[in-house]
């Protein structure tokens, strides 16, 4: 998660930490255990470890850096208050992002922002997005640099339904595996794969139109 521009993904669901810090960084379960005993430094280490990936996720979901930072703070406070309910049998990052995802959903419900159920069929401007025989479609011009494509992706991301955007971000920004995303969102793995694909196709088509 939280990789630098152009960096090769290290491992799905992994967390970017400064080089050299990996060996000295205690396990999440150890940090949680210490934090539960009142060790605030241990919780601070958790915050430092996850502040970047969490803000990347919330930033893409809200579209605003300041809002993302506010949400990140709120999520960390929720996590702190709920640490007692964390079970080490589960991966901590999955648990944390589940809290973040639920926090966003609560926020949208309160604001009455339109949300889209993942069970609904999706139609975008160009018709139903179901897997189909490859269609070369409008090819992405090779002359553009990756940076320009990324800018287009960022703009297009804001226009796709939040439920699809979230799965795309968890997969490609935070580098969670499909299985981990299925855990976070309580969805079947096949559904997650299909929805991430649909999100990418939506982005591709919207970028083509921009």
């Amino acid at each position: 998660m939280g990789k630098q521009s152009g960096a090769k993904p290290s491992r799905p669901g992994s967390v970017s930490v400064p080089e050299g810090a990996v060996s000295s960084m205690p396990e999440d379960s150890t940090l949680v255990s210490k934090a539960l005993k009142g060790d605030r430094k241990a919780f601070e280490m958790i915050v430092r470890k996850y502040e970047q990936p969490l803000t990347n996720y919330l930033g893409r979901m809200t579209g605003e850096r300041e809002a993302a930072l506010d949400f990140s703070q709120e999520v960390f406070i929720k996590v702190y208050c709920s640490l007692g309910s964390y079970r080490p049998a589960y991966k901590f990052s999955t648990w944390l992002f589940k809290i973040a995802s639920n926090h966003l959903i609560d926020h949208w419900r309160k604001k009455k922002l339109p949300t889209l159920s993942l069970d609904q069929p999706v139609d975008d401007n160009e018709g139903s997005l179901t897997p189909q025989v490859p269609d070369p479609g409008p090819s992405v011009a090779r002359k553009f640099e990756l940076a320009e494509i990324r800018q287009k992706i960022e703009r297009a991301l804001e226009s796709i339904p939040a439920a699809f955007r979230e799965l795309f971000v968890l997969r490609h920004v935070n580098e969670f595996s499909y299985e981990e995303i299925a855990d976070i969102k309580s969805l079947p793995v096949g559904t997650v794969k299909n929805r991430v694909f649909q999100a990418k196709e939506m982005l591709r088509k919207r970028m083509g139109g921009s």
Partner: protein
Amino acid sequence: MRDCWNAESFYLYLEEELDPSERREFEAHLARCPSCRGVLAERRLLHEAFTSLPPFEVPPDFALSVMDRLPEPAEARPRWLAALAAGTASLVVGLLGFFILTGENLSDVLVAVIRSLSSGFGRLLPLFAKLLKVGGLLLDVASGFVTMLGKGLVALLSSLGTEGIGLILGLGLLLSLLLFLGAKRLLSSGEKA
């Protein structure tokens, strides 16, 4: 070509999510299908961009600001409260058990216990007073007070009778239970915070 793979497979191929046999089949198809090679090249560029979106900048003091906003940790756990509650409950339950099992008059039992305690204190306190040779007078007064208190309690218990003692024990049990539950709640709220 008629056997072209669907669009989702191109992404799964790039993410190395196809199983080995599917991957081989997919690559074999690519080798003979220029159209799919074109699609793959396009999706590869997109995939590279998808997986390299820049991170949002997090201020260096972000973690500290989170720590400042955390709720204060719970106060030191009042373990003595739980111990006191458990001790009181044990005493009450023991006395009740004795009363039920032996059928002895509870007031007699209590009177005997208090008498022995008060006489024990009565003997010990002057001994301490002699040993210390300081404040002997005060300890004598204290001894007298304890003896008087014991006598007072004996008189009170004798006048209350079995029902009165039962009532007091019941109230004691209830109080112990409340103390225990309160202590447990304090402990659990400490854990949450």
